């Protein structure tokens, strides 16, 4: 197992170097002078320009600049935001829990609804229920989620007035960020009203962000179940006289879950892309909105640092999914 981990990590190294190169060259590819870009809208005096030139190392050859960029990276230095003057890494860390909280809720929603939907569709294969579930899943899969979010706001916030339109919690509460997860922090602060407010703020974004993963999971579960239901051991289990529930829920599902778990893992990248849109619609103060805002504000150090962090996280999560796949699927483990 340890050897496998090292082998996979080794494969990631070239990709990671490529990612750092991408983020390094990002600022240099932008049209215009990098110093003027870094200085922002106000511009700089010629003396200050030369000072910055030396400070950022732009007077050195490119490969040396890249090496010192890498060196800074490994010391956790991702640069400083032009707008807030805060270190990029620090900003990332404050906002990251909001995105993680939303993503976890979305993936839980997607699994809790998508998995049973896929199982039901597979069991009722060819029946009306199957067609209904699969058509709905395809609609979900085709959904422009930025529009879906606006529709939900029109209906649940505008017409019914049930849910708030934006943010993580009502302005009436101020919760000390301990973990950064609003649901946990409000519970720690022992304020039931604040917890309820946090939940109501979370519902619509969760549904919006979870919609596409839900559809993917439902479709994948159905086809994985269909494959497994034809297998000999399922027929054997039925022949032994086991109840339908036991056959489907235990014997079949356990094996059908293997490809489904991989699919769930691969949704992480999709979730990040979705978070950009979801957070923009609901003014959710997470990484996605931060990136979009920074692109618009031309806060390039933030874009550069955020890009790198997000890619690194996606790579690490994919690695973990890959390893878990080996753990739960003996076939793969033995061939390694």
């Amino acid at each position: 197992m340890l050897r496998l981990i090292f082998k996979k990590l080794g494969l990631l190294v070239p990709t990671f170097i490529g990612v750092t190169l991408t983020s390094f060259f990002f600022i240099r590819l932008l049209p215009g002078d990098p110093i003027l870009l870094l200085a922002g809208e106000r511009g700089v005096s010629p003396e200050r320009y030369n000072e910055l030139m030396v400070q950022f190392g732009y007077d050195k050859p490119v490969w040396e600049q890249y090496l010192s960029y890498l060196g800074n990276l490994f010391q956790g230095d991702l640069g400083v935001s032009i707008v807030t003057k805060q270190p990029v890494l620090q900003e990332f860390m404050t906002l990251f829990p909001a995105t993680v909280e939303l993503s976890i809720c979305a993936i839980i929603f997607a699994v809790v609804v998508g998995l049973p939907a896929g199982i039901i569709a597979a069991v009722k294969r060819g029946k009306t229920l199957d067609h209904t579930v699969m058509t709905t899943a395809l609609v979900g899969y085709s959904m422009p989620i930025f529009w879906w979010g606006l529709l939900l706001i029109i209906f649940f916030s505008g017409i019914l007035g049930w849910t708030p339109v934006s943010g993580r919690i009502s302005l009436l509460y101020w919760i000390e960020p301990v973990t950064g997860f609003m649901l946990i922090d409000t519970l720690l602060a022992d304020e039931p009203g604040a917890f309820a407010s946090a939940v109501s703020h979370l519902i619509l974004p969760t549904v919006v962000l979870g919609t596409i993963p839900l559809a993917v999971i439902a479709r994948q579960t159905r086809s994985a179940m269909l494959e497994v239901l034809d297998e000999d051991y399922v027929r054997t289990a039925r022949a032994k006289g086991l109840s339908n529930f036991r056959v489907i829920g235990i014997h079949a599902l356990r094996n059908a879950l293997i490809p489904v778990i991989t699919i769930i893992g691969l949704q992480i990248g999709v979730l990040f892309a979705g978070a950009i849109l979801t957070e923009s619609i609901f003014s959710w103060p997470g990484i996605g909105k931060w990136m979009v805002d920074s692109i618009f504000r031309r806060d390039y150090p933030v874009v550069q640092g955020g890009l790198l962090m997000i890619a690194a996280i996606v790579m690490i999560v994919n690695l973990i999914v890959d390893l878990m796949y080996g753990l739960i699927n003996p076939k793969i483990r033995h061939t390694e």
Partner: protein
Amino acid sequence: MADVTQNSAPDTRFELIVNFWRHFRTNKGAVAGLIFFVALVIIALGAVVIAPHSPIEQYRDALLLPPAWQEGGDWSYILGTDAVGRDLLSRLIYGSQFSLFIGVVVVSVALVVGVCLGLVAGTFGGWIDTIIMRIMDIILAFPSLLLALVLVAILGPSLINAMIAIAIVQQPYYVRLTRASVMSEMSREYVMAARVSGVGTLRLMFVTVLPNCMAPLIVQAALSFSTAILDAAALGFLGMGAQAPDPEWGTMLAESREFILRAPWVVTFPGLAILSTVLAINLIGDGLRDALDPKLKRS
């Protein structure tokens, strides 16, 4: 088509197509998607004739008019007007040109470049293969929409740049698919035979091998056509795609965001147009997959 014998092995191109169509038409959803798509193409091509108004003319006496069937609606603006008095229906009709154009351009670029890179990687192997595939891994390490956004930030926000960015982001899927099928085809006997008879490398790649790798690529093309439309609309929605006053559906949504509670129709219809177009293409894609890929058929 009924007089074609059932079990004849498809040996001519015509029979291949007939055979494909026989599988395809059993899928009702796919046929419905195809009908919708054809209708959309006709609407896009005939927009000048079909649209009741100009997509950008502002009727100052008809601001935020509701759809005709609602109270206060006007039958000369069937789906109502937006905040500056432009006819929503006409904008939607012209918007179909944008979406189809985006889909065609993105898929063509990603397909042509991706297939070439995949063919090279699969045929030659070695360090060329390693370099190409590592670059594709790097592209895949970034969430697609984020990478597209950043690329547009570098290139400057416009429809063309959004299409370039989306084509780059979709590239790896074509490269991987092509490479995988090329590698499995390369060990087949007909490739050996072609090699022995002295066929040149280029001819081997494009004429001998490529046609046998087309099935998964066609399915992927359908899927990425819909993804391209969705991503372009998302970029438009974020203000990084087509720019106002272009009636691109995502851009229309972005312009109407502030009116969602006052005038829900300006938000509802453009999104509905995106959803139904993407859905129709995905239905076609599912049908193509079932008809072209025997392994996945009927599952």
